[in-house]
């Protein structure tokens, strides 16, 4: 077999948040890892775990911004570690867990707190897909489908200024999921999704900071979806005030 091509490496200094169950507080450990310009913060964490500290815990799975498990805070920004290149972070990288979700260990947060409200929105994982311009559907394919943009990473929840101050807030991910149901119900219960969202701890709690849309690594636009839901909820109320028979209840 031919020799594998290698690329020149540079030392990257990682300051990594550490905290185990029973610890009285968190701390930062420092590790130095040689990485080439194409490598990511996730590659660095894997190298630390493999070569320096096997007790380091962090979530990861797909390595290409599709599973959403490696959401974390890198140099103060909420990002997916798998697509955050060290060439863009610079040689000093501070890694912290996502905010606004309970900590399990080191960089691992408890995703049950994320999926609780998210699941109440009832959004199916797969949506109808647009055909490529000029394309046709193949024989036997009645509806072209694709996964929803949202990868359930928790980054929008971490970036949201309201989620940090109000634990009862449904949060941008769950509200965006509800919006998707209202926009494209498929077999899901759109009126129930709207009722879930149309609440003082739902769409009306949002401060319209759009930090969520800014941080979303998958262009799911939670902030825009919250505004779409506000319009839908308002229209629904207006219809109800005027006694229109077809308002969602």
């Amino acid at each position, binding site marked *: 077999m031919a020799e594998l091509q290698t690329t020149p490496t540079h030392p990257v200094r990682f300051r990594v948040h550490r905290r185990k169950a029973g610890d009285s507080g968190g701390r930062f450990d420092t590790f130095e890892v040689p990485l080439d310009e194409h490598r990511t913060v996730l590659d660095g964490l894997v190298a630390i775990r493999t070569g320096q500290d096997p007790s380091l*815990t962090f979530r990861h799975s797909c390595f290409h*911004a599709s599973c959403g498990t490696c959401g974390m805070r890198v140099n103060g920004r909420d990002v997916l570690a798998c697509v955050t290149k060290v060439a863009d972070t610079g040689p000093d990288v501070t890694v912290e867990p996502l905010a606004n979700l309970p900590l399990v260990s080191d960089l691992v947060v408890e995703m049950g707190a994320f999926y609780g409200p998210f699941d109440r929105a009832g959004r199916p994982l797969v949506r109808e897909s647009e055909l*490529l311009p000029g394309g046709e559907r193949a024989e036997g394919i009645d509806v072209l489908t694709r996964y929803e943009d949202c990868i359930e990473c928790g980054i929008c929840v971490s970036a949201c200024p309201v989620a940090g101050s109000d634990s009862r807030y449904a949060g941008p991910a769950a509200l965006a999921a509800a919006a998707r149901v209202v926009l494209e119900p498929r077999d899901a219960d759109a009126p129930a999704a709207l009722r879930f969202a149309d609440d003082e701890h739902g769409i009306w709690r949002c401060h319209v900071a759009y930090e969520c849309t800014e941080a979303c690594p998958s262009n799911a636009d939670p902030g825009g979806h919250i505004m779409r839901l506000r319009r839908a909820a308002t229209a629904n109320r207006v219809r109800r005030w005027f006694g229109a028979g077809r308002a969602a209840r």
Partner: protein
Amino acid sequence: MNETASLRAPAHVLIVGGGGTGGALAHDLLLRGVRVTLVERGEITSGTTGRHHGLLHSGARYAVKDKESAVECIEENTILRRICPGSFELNDGLFVAITEEDVAYEPAFVEACLESGIPARRVSRAEALRLEPHLNPEMKLAVQIPDGTMDAMRMPLRFFATARHNGAVIRPWTAVTEIIVNSRTVTGVRVRDLTSGAEEVVGADLVVNATGPWAEIVARMADCDVPVQPSPGVLLAVRGRWCNMVLNRLHPSGDGDIIVPQRGLSVIGTSSWVVENPDDLGVPEDHVERMYSEGAKLVPAVRNAERRAAWSAARPLIGSRGASTGRELSRTFKCFDHAETDGVEGFVTISGGKGTTLRAMAEKTADVVCAKLGIDAPCRTRDTVLLPHSAYYLN
């Protein structure tokens, strides 16, 4: 179930490894009345499982060279559509002939697909270009087969979710530090909880090593041998969906000849080399470049598509060296009963295989495990619809 077994508490099986195989095995064993604990040193699906290209195989890729794998894939493809509803992008796939050599391959390919039970429809050049406007205009003809796109984490997660809700104890962040062997019988493992540092011994009637490309390293902890060679491949995800369907090159399998559209990305794969340590793969840039150049032969536009990510995933390749007397269940995966291969009781290794066949691997392994434990219960996973992936995180 035999009389002695039925009088005792349910047998306890400890599974090492939280990939798709371990999750599907936990689910299968639970349905057969076995008590299950699964330990994984990291997050669930953080090894090979989550990193594959996300292709729900029709089996067409294997039809000419390896009919057994092809039949296994189309059977499992059909079963997964049934037990994981709503988990796939089901847009079929095209095998595309670009060269005259590819065209010459077509009759044998279609015949092999049909013989394997894979529906295959010949598509003219004109029709293929209507279905896929970005296809290489030099293409000659294509064949439509029932490939699909899977979420490499969320589909397997449904097995974990269902197993957990049926009573399995799933413990991520739990590393095995020792496999305990008494008089050549495995009786349990010592684990370290990486969220607290606490160590404990977990006893088991049987331990299953389901660690994929790590199988040899883990088997060695019990002085057993497994001929598994970690064989990584590079995958490249570019921004944008450049095809409506999964695209394959219509030729004998090679590098960079699959493009899988997934969410807002297109994933091009893959290459192949061998390593000793599956924790240290690297991502050779020349392989990334090859994904671009080979992918561009199918869809020229990917050449200039923005790189979203490039990564490596280690296949567990089963070699023929060492103890190969294990039960050969298929050419694609193997289950080793270490009582037979190494004279060590209470220890079974499952490795090899692919994402599409995770349920079948689990079924065959559960058959071996139940036979060893004297449990007479049929497999029920073919018809048990799985809970949604999010149920894994919810109580």
